[in-house]
């Protein structure tokens, strides 16, 4: 059996404005699995997300990252996206003047997944309905004047419409009330399947109750210091990070 497309991160180091944030991250996320990445503030979670997607501000200083047998690091962000990577932004960017519908069409076209107009609009309508996004948002400018919750739902709408093979969800659950969280989690659940791997970055275990990750990793000081199953998330929920981080710090390097 051929190996499933897998996101492979090995000893990844990355710096922002000269300051090293990632200090040797190791991670494997195969398609068909949901992996949660947790960790306290400042542990490097968002940096890892941006670095994997190829934001020019994040400089890789060592290690490697690949997907489906391709080296990601020499690729630009749009090339990574065309390889199947997707990033749901923690703080999605507003682009005034560019409507959601035009943006999605441009993205589908770039990904080689262009649909006939009617089919595209039907897909869009049904996905929007599932995510409880008002039809009016089709003609609104991307993220322009959206509330925090609307932005997050719009990220998941893009995930549903663009159908990547590896999605990094960067704190998609933050800033959501309980109902919005359920809607967003259900939206993610609908895309979960054999063809997609998900790296779910989160602070809280609540969304994990909906998404049931196959693995949970803890990032600390730019390194994965603990990995386990769902029980690890539950332990963090009840005890906080300190016992785990303390144990990791005490372990031989």
């Amino acid at each position, binding site marked *: 059996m051929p190996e499933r497309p897998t996101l492979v991160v090995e000893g990844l180091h990355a710096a922002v404005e000269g300051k090293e944030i990632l200090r040797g991250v190791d991670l494997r996320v195969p398609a068909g699995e949901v992996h949660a990445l947790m960790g306290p503030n400042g542990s490097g979670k968002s940096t890892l997300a941006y670095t994997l*997607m*190829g*934001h*020019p*501000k994040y400089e890789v200083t060592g290690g490697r990252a690949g997907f489906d047998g391709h080296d990601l690091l020499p690729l*630009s*962000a*749009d090339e*990574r*996206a*065309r390889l199947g990577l*997707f*990033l749901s*932004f923690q703080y*999605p*960017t*507003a*682009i*005034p*003047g*560019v409507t959601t519908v*035009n*943006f999605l069409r*441009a*993205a589908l076209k*770039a*990904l080689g997944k262009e649909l006939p107009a009617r089919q595209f609009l039907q897909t869009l309508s049904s996905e929007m309905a599932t995510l409880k996004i008002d039809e009016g948002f089709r003609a609104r*400018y*991307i993220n322009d004047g959206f509330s925090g919750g609307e932005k997050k739902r719009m990220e998941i709408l*893009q995930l549903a419409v*663009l159908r990547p093979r590896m999605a990094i969800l960067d704190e998609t659950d933050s800033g959501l009330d309980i109902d919005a969280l359920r809607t967003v989690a259900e939206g993610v659940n609908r895309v979960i399947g054999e063809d997609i791997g998900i790296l779910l970055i989160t602070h809280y275990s609540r969304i994990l109750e909906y998404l049931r990750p196959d693995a949970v990793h803890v990032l600390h000081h730019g390194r994965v210091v603990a990995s386990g199953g769902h029980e690890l998330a539950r332990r963090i929920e009840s005890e906080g990070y300190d016992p785990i981080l303390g144990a990791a710090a005490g372990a031989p390097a």
Partner: protein
Amino acid sequence: MSIQLPIAGAVGAAAVEARRAGAPAWLAERRSAAWEAFTELPMPSPQRDEDWRRTDVSELRLEEYIADPGTAAAGEALLQAMSQLRLRAAPEAAFVASTRRGLRRREGTDMLDAQGVIICSLDDAAVQHPEQLRRALSTVPPEESKFLALWNALWRGGCFVYVPPGVEARVPVWAAHTAAGAGAAIFPATVAVLDDRASLTLIDVYASPAGDDDMVSVAATPLVLGEGARLDYCLLQQWGMGTWHVATHRASAGRDARLRFFGATLGARLQKAYWEVLLDGQGAEATLTGICFGDGAQHLDHQSLQDHRAPQTRSDLLLKVAVRDEARSIYGGLIEVQRRAQQSDGYVQNRNLMLSRGARASGIPRLEIKADDVRCSHGVTAGHIDNDQRFYLESRGVPRAEADRLIVRGFMQDALDRCPHQGVRELLTELLDEEIAGHPVAGVSSDEDVA
């Protein structure tokens, strides 16, 4: 000092003489006086003239350009290209096209003729409707500037529109101005007089479909709005990259008149354009909206004036500029509120997007307020493409060039939305896409076409 022999047909006294012949006395006199003013006034200079500080025309040798092309080809292909542009955007519009030879086309005017709307060349208007033409010309006096003097001396053909009181013109008027051939000098003229409560959509287009020949265009468009009149004015400047273009677009608005002025600046090697509205009557209002895209070595200068001369007048200007390569944009704007113009509002916004390191844009708005009960404000921004916006689009697979195109188009969108004619808005959207993509505008060959 060498003595230069005049070039046949060149900008000079002989060209003025040719235009005096056959003109009514008042006009012949006006042309002579204008030529005299032109010869006496110095070229604008960055050192001497505040509004020319950043735009240098010292290399422009006006007398070397040809106003009257002699026996060259007829320019049919040019007129055809201009007509096709109209068919793309406003097939319903009456079409009036001029070249250096004067008025060349007048088509589709039946409906407006039946409404009593007058559409003719300025030459004909001078004979048949002198009061209305003189009323309009009085707002662009020759002695005001070197270029206005030259225009007054040498305009030919052009588009004159008069809308009688209470008449709402049922279709737009599309005025086209075109020229081709190295050394061509054209003096485009579009004049509109809207009588009380009249309304009109006027689309005014300047283009050289033949390409980037070294030409000069000196234009003026006096627009007169009577009481309660409504004018939607759409301006498209699409000259080739070899053209020097100096234009004065000046509207005067009477009591409760409403002007929607929309200008698109895409072409020319160098442009100096005055966009001016004189709010003469109480309650008059004007919106002025512009989009400008410059690339290569283009130098594009807009100078706006919102002159509040009566109480309760309102004006609102938005100019969006994107420049690439080594292009340069200059914007200077003045809101003037006269002492009697109490309870007036005036706004100016100029937003600039620089797409390359070598591109530059500046905006300097000014307020001169002599009344005390007014609301006025201005704002200018200039910046580069936002890296986070670009990354966001790229992260969805959109390649860099397409991402930038979307961002620039998005940047222009709120201005485009203010274009009062839907067909023109759609045309401009397409033309803007072509500009951003860097595709040359498809056109006709200038070899066969000197007009």
